[in-house]
């Protein structure tokens, strides 16, 4: 059943988990680079400070888009943790992301404009794979509802290893990790300054940051789905996957949009589609 409690739990707890994950991320990244790194709770301090700053804007409409971004990210994530329809969750996330892109477009600044274009390329790069992942889960569990997928008791990962690898690939894009941090990056400065977020500042930027935390928690939740039959393995898998993403982030330099688009589509095609094709064939030949 759709669980309102889980949704509320997500809304309250996700920023803390998301911020903590960001802190761990920064710590491990620093260690990989031979630095000490900031304290674990630094992300909270950073965002807290953003909210103390005076708000300046390029156009007031930026507020509407960034606020909508946060609201819809929270709503989509809540729908996921409540156990809603996976495809609807994905479409709702697309809607949320559109608001971030529109916010970047609205300021008519060269840097955020290019960031917006790149963000859109990233969306078309990762979206097919995520939809295929949802379709794969349906093919295994016969349901799109997250609560039914969770309760299916099936080791989904064993049916969908290719889809999972493809998902890890697009996860790199979603987490804004190198080589796919085209539109904006966690690192200090890139060739288009801060890309999408260049013209956001103060509390507005704080809201964008919190939305990103919410989204990361959703993404980790998506990994959990693959291993849902055994919570312990699932948590280990999430940790391993995230460490892998940090490692990738630190070993690759930023790619071009063409590289991003091509590689993610090829992976989605090779890993995701082939995996689904095999499942499809097996389900036709060997009735369960």
């Amino acid at each position, binding site marked *: 059943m759709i669980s309102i409690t889980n949704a509320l739990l997500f809304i309250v707890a996700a920023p803390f988990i998301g911020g903590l994950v960001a802190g761990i991320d920064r710590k491990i990244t620093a260690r990989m680079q031979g630095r000490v790194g900031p304290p674990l709770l630094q992300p909270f301090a950073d965002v807290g400070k953003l909210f103390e700053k005076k708000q300046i*804007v390029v156009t007031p409409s930026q507020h509407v888009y960034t606020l*909508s971004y946060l609201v819809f990210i929270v709503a989509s994530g809540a729908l996921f943790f409540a156990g809603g329809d996976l495809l609807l969750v994905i479409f709702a996330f697309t809607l949320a992301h559109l608001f971030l892109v529109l916010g970047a477009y609205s300021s008519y600044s060269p840097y955020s404009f290019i960031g917006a274009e790149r963000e859109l390329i990233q969306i078309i790069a990762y979206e097919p794979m995520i939809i295929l992942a949802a379709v794969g889960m349906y093919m295994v569990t016969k349901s799109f509802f997250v609560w039914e997928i969770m309760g299916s008791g099936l080791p989904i990962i064993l049916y969908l290893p290719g889809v999972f690898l493809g998902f890890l690939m697009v996860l790199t894009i979603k987490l804004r990790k190198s080589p796919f941090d085209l539109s904006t990056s966690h690192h200090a400065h890139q060739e288009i300054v801060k890309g999408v977020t260049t013209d956001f500042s103060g509390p507005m930027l704080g809201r964008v940051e919190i939305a990103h935390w919410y989204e990361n928690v959703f993404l980790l939740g998506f990994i959990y789905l693959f291993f849902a039959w055994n919570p312990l393995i699932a948590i280990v898998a999430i940790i391993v996957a995230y460490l892998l993403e940090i490692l990738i982030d630190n070993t690759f330099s930023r790619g071009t949009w063409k590289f991003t688009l091509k590689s993610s589509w090829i992976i989605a095609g090779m890993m995701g589609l082939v995996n689904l094709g095999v499942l499809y064939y097996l389900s036709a030949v060997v009735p369960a």
Partner: protein
Amino acid sequence: MINNDKKPDFHPFEGESLITLPFLILFPAAIALILLLVPGDSWRRLVVQAGALIIGIASFYLLFITPGAGQEFFPVTVEWVTTLMFIAEMIIAVFLIYLGIKHRKYLAIFLVVAQAALLLFFESTGSHGAHVPDLFIDQLSLIMALIIGIIGSLICVYALGYMATFHQQHPDVKDRRRTFFFLVFIFLSSMFGLVFSNYLPWVFFFWELTTLCSFLLIGYSGTGEAINNSFLALNMNLLGGIAFAGALIYLAIISPGGNLLAISTLIQSGHAVALVPAVLIAFAGITKSALMPFSAWLVGAMVAPTPVSALLHSSTMVKAGVYIIVRLSPVMTGTMEGLIIALVGGFTFLLASAIAISQSNAKKVLAYSTIANLGLIVACAGVGTYKLVWAAIMLIIFHAIAKSLLFLCVGTVEHRIGSRDIEDMTGLIVRMPRIGVMMLVGIAGMFLAPFGMLISKWAAIEAFIDAPFGLLFVAILAFGGSITVFFWSKWMGKIISVCPVAELVENRISREKWIVLSLLTAMTVFVCLAFPVISSHLVEPFVLSVYGQTARLSQDNIIIMAMMLFLLMIMPFSLLWFRKEKNIVPPYMAGRPATPDLHFLGSMGVQRQVGLANYYLEDVFGERRLFMAGTALCFGLILLMGTLTAGVAL
């Protein structure tokens, strides 16, 4: 065949559709004739507005008199109607040959002669003498009639103001507005005829009328480009018409009594007899709805005045093509031929969406998006499981509304800013705030959750998983759907960029244009709110009566989407709160000294102004390359289908 566990609703006006159906066919034709005679602009205005209002009300009235489930038939015993149609067809053929000679388009002449010869041959079989032709109505016809009657007549009203401005701005084009409005109303009349006719020779007659009207309307401005493109449209549609005539002859030969010439008997007569004519007619549908390899005519048709494009893309013409394919989809379900037709649709969806990325001309983007969506509808109808037919009909409804809104917005913008290029629409939200918002609603309606098109695409994904060979279509939808996000979003981005040098130009837009645009915007939102009702009262009964089972979205999802829509509608109001923002600064310019209108000192001491243009990714999504690929692929598929069908027929 009809397995219906729903009780027919109580209908106090039962039987009145006997009057309403012929009325809806004949009344627009009568208005058309009056418009041909009425000289002045003010009289024309009155006639068009009154005519549009009556057509709108009459089609809305159908909603109350259509039986709750199943079909209702109205035999037309007047014998000379069919003969009259035949004579009209011959006159049209002579007229087209005359135009062909005048413009030296010999291919068109050849096609017209070939089609006329087939038609003469069909008449000579004399098979339809025995059969009493009839009109019919069911939920599918009703949905189509609502689309034609409401959206079509709104476009007619809009065209009044548009054409007046058009002729002011193009003094070189001869003012033939009388013919223009005559053709537009004949178009509506023939579309009504097409969706109400059960008797295939009649459907064919109206089919050819739509071809003729679109041909003449595309060539309206009389420039060389317009004439060429109109003949391109004519040739491709005549090719479809020839296939349609072939289907008639085939049916006349296998059923000398003429019983199979009725759609309702044809779709129940099984694969063995019905497949060949169904495939031939579906081919005609593919040409009419401009799927690849025939997409060029619809792209070329954008030379026509914008209301014509709106009409062709939303409520008439291309919708006739998908209507007939949806109608015949029970015959094609589960066959190889149906699958091939679906693949033609699927590849068209994928490639046309990709081509739209590389286009900056707004009308061309809209054209490719139409082609893509028609492809998707045909993909659904070709595979033809009950869930997919549900999705296909939903797509027809949502697409008609959002697309007509977008075309009319682009037309309005074009007249005010003198360009239909998306790059010139920078900051439209500041320059033309109301039109800008309407355009945003239209675009959102085309691809965003929780709006209609997305609901249908979502339903299609779910339905394809369970269909034979469905995984291929799921992949097409996954990739094609996200491509769609790209080109719509960047257009939205252009509109909402708050450019510092924008001035307000949203004046001098006539009141009737505002009324039409506002109504269409309201309808785009309204159908999203009302879609569970539309589904349960119109789409589901039809699917149920044809397939014995029906699809619907789960209750939870409907509630969640209603909440999303609500949230989406209240978010803009936060601007009221943020409007009093005091600290407005110029955008970040990397520390360069820049003026408020974004001039900055570039290298070598040159003053430059910031100019921002969207990505079009020509070398990946270029039109030439993808169009070639699509043409080759779909042409090959159609050849394969032709071979298979010929194998069945012989």
